[in-house]
């Protein structure tokens, strides 16, 4: 089966519909599927629910989908870097479900692994526990969290082969593997598609079984907080 597509638009063809649920990889602006986000913007699909740790920044990443009012609800752990997000949220245009970061990652991993729910002590005794089942194991309380299954996953990796095996680079891996796992369909954008056999099978980070469509493209890879130190002077 052919997994390699010529462009982000082609790779998303037939996969988008209003009101759908999308899981997106990335942490901050690191390892986000820039090209696929742009293609979702271009498609005009709306009333989206998006599970992503963050929602980009104003005018970049998922922030672009806020500017065009295509998002109805976000499931995120941290959204502090985005003025338009706050404006839409405070005016009631945008729904927000906060998840603790590890709970969000595990909800994706679980959903992709056939686990409909799991118990965690994260959030016990906080607002996160409200309305959730509490169960005591060995003297400690845990809350029930649900696995996430998304209609579509969009992720970014460093390299892929044409069968969809993915390799990530440094901390750009982050939410991409769990986000990929939880989608009924996963589209990945990569910096380079390499010939089959040129990736070491022992060093594949995400097996191609999770990846249905792949595109290669140029990434801006914007830095959110550029921090440096001075060279020591002798």
């Amino acid at each position, binding site marked *: 089966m052919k997994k390699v597509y010529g462009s982000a638009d082609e790779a998303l063809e037939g996969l988008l519909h209003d009101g759908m649920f999308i899981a997106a990889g990335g942490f901050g602006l690191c390892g986000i599927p820039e090209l696929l986000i742009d293609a979702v913007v271009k498609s005009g699909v709306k009333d989206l629910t998006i599970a992503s740790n963050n929602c980009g920044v104003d005018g970049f990443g998922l922030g672009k989908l806020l500017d065009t009012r295509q998002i109805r609800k976000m499931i995120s752990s941290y959204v502090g870097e985005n003025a338009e997000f706050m404006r839409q949220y405070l005016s009631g245009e945008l729904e927000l479900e*906060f998840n603790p970061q590890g709970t969000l990652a595990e909800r994706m991993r679980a959903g992709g692994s056939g686990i409909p729910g799991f118990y965690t002590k994260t959030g016990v005794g906080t607002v996160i526990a409200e309305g959730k089942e509490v169960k005591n194991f060995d003297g400690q309380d845990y809350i029930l969290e649900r696995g996430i299954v998304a209609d579509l996953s969009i992720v970014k990796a460093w390299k892929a082969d044409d069968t969809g095996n993915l390799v990530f680079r440094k901390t750009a891996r982050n939410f991409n593997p769990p986000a990929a796992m939880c989608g009924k369909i996963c589209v990945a954008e990569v910096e380079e598609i390499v010939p089959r056999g040129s990736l070491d099978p022992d060093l594949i980070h995400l097996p191609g079984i999770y990846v249905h469509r792949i595109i290669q493209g140029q990434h801006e890879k914007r830095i959110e*907080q550029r921090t440096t130190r001075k060279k020591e002077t002798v």
Partner: protein
Amino acid sequence: MPQAAKGWDRNQMAARAAQELEDGMYVNLGIGIPTLVANYVGDKDITLQSENGMLGMGPFPYEGEEDPDLINAGKQTITELSRTSYFDSATSFGMIRGGKIAAAILGAMEVSEEGDLANWMIPGKLVKGMGGAMDLVAGVGRVIVVMDHTNKAGESKVLKACTLPLTGKAVVDRIITNLGVLDVVPGGLKIVELADGVSEDELRASTEATIV
């Protein structure tokens, strides 16, 4: 009353917090004063975790060597070390939730005498989210809070009960403030140490929580 000048400054609090770390520990440092702790670990063999998917976090890069694929949980550009490993977010929080991280050093808005911690949300103000803080305080072996003892209005941040929404319930083990070091024990807080130039009466006067 010039409360801010009393006791330890930010760097002294960070240096005191660094004394909590032991050779061989895997540790997660929060944003703010906790980040400074890394400057005071000396020759102890400490591995820093960044919850976005890295063990063995190195210092900021030299100018011109920033890598957009290499950031910490505060989204700052950083570097790797010879010991560094990378992993995905589910694995990262698996090691946090699973108690593999020995300690987290975090800032706080309020701490209660029962070890409740509030550091993610002020009702009516801009809500940014809890990020990984709830997972960290619920999961790691030991939670050490580093913060000023009082707020800008001079009111105690060490309370009988938190007034702000909680990050975790009964999760804090030790509190390090500009006035000293307190442990969460049955019945309240126990004074472990006083900061330089701070008397026990002064610490008690700035503490709303029960001191046992």
